[in-house]
């Protein structure tokens, strides 16, 4: 699914990326290349720039210097096309509290980020929320709201996943759910960048750790 016609797999590259937040240099000349089937796990202390890097990769933020390339082309030159190939789980779950799980996912499908196919009920079943499809998200627990966000991964056909702390507020089988989703995603030739504090169990999962040192952090 992610291979180009010429058989050369589409890869995600960060080329000499540097990021400045406020007056602080978060990281400098950061390089990596990710080929399909790989999961890049960002490891680093708080404030070492994991979320900033994910925002740069998603194209929401402009890098201070350097470029993010998908399939060899800068994502900012092809931003709408890039967003079609991208599914992002952000720091916040992106679930509005005064809508039900079904309505939240219906909006996500309509927005079309990450090429979601429309089977909402089935996706909610996979993440174990089939009993509370029509309850307001405000009445659900933080873990259940996070599972609504994970349902977007189930429905997504996008080759690239950017996951910022997907395991927050999740119980043990929630963690296993994320790992199984990553396994099916990478087996289909997808690739993912993951920022997490609890390391993902990497049995039969091609995980590569990427150390983020805070630059100049005393």
């Amino acid at each position, binding site marked *: 699914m992610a291979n180009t016609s010429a058989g050369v797999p589409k890869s995600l590259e960060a080329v000499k990326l540097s990021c400045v937040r406020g007056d602080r240099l978060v990281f400098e000349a950061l390089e990596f290349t990710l080929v399909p089937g790989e999961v890049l796990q960002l490891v680093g202390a708080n404030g070492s720039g994991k979320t900033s890097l994910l925002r740069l990769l998603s194209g929401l933020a402009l890098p201070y210097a350097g470029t993010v390339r998908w399939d060899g082309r800068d994502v900012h030159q092809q931003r709408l096309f890039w*967003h079609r190939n991208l599914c992002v789980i952000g720091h*916040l*779950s*992106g*679930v509005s509290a005064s809508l039900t799980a079904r309505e939240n996912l219906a909006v996500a499908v309509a*927005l079309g980020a990450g090429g979601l196919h429309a089977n909402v009920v089935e996706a909610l079943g996979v993440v174990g929320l089939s009993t509370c499809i029509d309850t307001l998200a405000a009445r659900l627990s933080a873990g259940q709201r996070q599972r609504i966000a994970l349902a977007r991964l189930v429905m997504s056909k996008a080759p690239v996943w950017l996951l910022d702390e997907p395991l927050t507020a999740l119980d043990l089988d929630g963690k296993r759910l994320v790992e199984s989703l990553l396994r099916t995603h990478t087996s289909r030739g997808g690739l993912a960048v993951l920022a997490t504090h609890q390391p993902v169990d990497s049995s039969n999962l091609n995980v590569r750790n990427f150390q983020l040192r805070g630059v100049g952090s005393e």
Partner: protein
Amino acid sequence: MNFMRAAAAILQRDIRRLLRRRGQWTQPLMFFVMVVVLFPFALGSGEITASIVPAVVWTAMLLATTLSLEEIFRSDFDDGSLDQLALSPHPLPLLLLAKAIAHWLTALLPLILMAGALARALNLAPTPLWTLLVTLLLGTPVFSLVGTLASALTIGLRGGALLLALIVMPLYIPVLIFGAGAVNNAALGLPTSGEMFFLAGLAVLAATLAPFAAAAGLRSRLS
């Protein structure tokens, strides 16, 4: 055509979300009524109050709008759905136009109806009353569109409400001038077509330019 579906989904979501939170869309309404009702107390029940009703109603409308602007992106920013909005492959200006329409329907339309009722209660003559309603219908879309832009620029900033008011004030003044001016002229029996055309022109200008500016503003705030 699915970008229309995306816009429709945003419009439906915002309206549904606002209707479920009773307090939210009644706040500007209460504020509007309070401001309009205060003036007669200050002026006494003489003939003067009738002549200043257009100015009071339009000023109260402007202030109530400014109060309601921060809510446009507040909940999206808090729960993270703002990023999902910006990450959509569909054009962001169109989605923000849908948000502006949702704000107009939920926050400003009730105000217009209340303005008509209050103006009638303060015995504004029929012709200026109709002029008031028409100018409000022409002017308030500009409030919503420019308001969405200003709200996008000031997402998540401390002291946002005051900053918002400072940003929108000079942009709202032309609408206030022509809106209140038209009603005052109608009260004097003068023709008001000039002001109406100008208001309509402002509405079209805002409808075409504001969404693109709001999208650029939103992207600059998200990075």
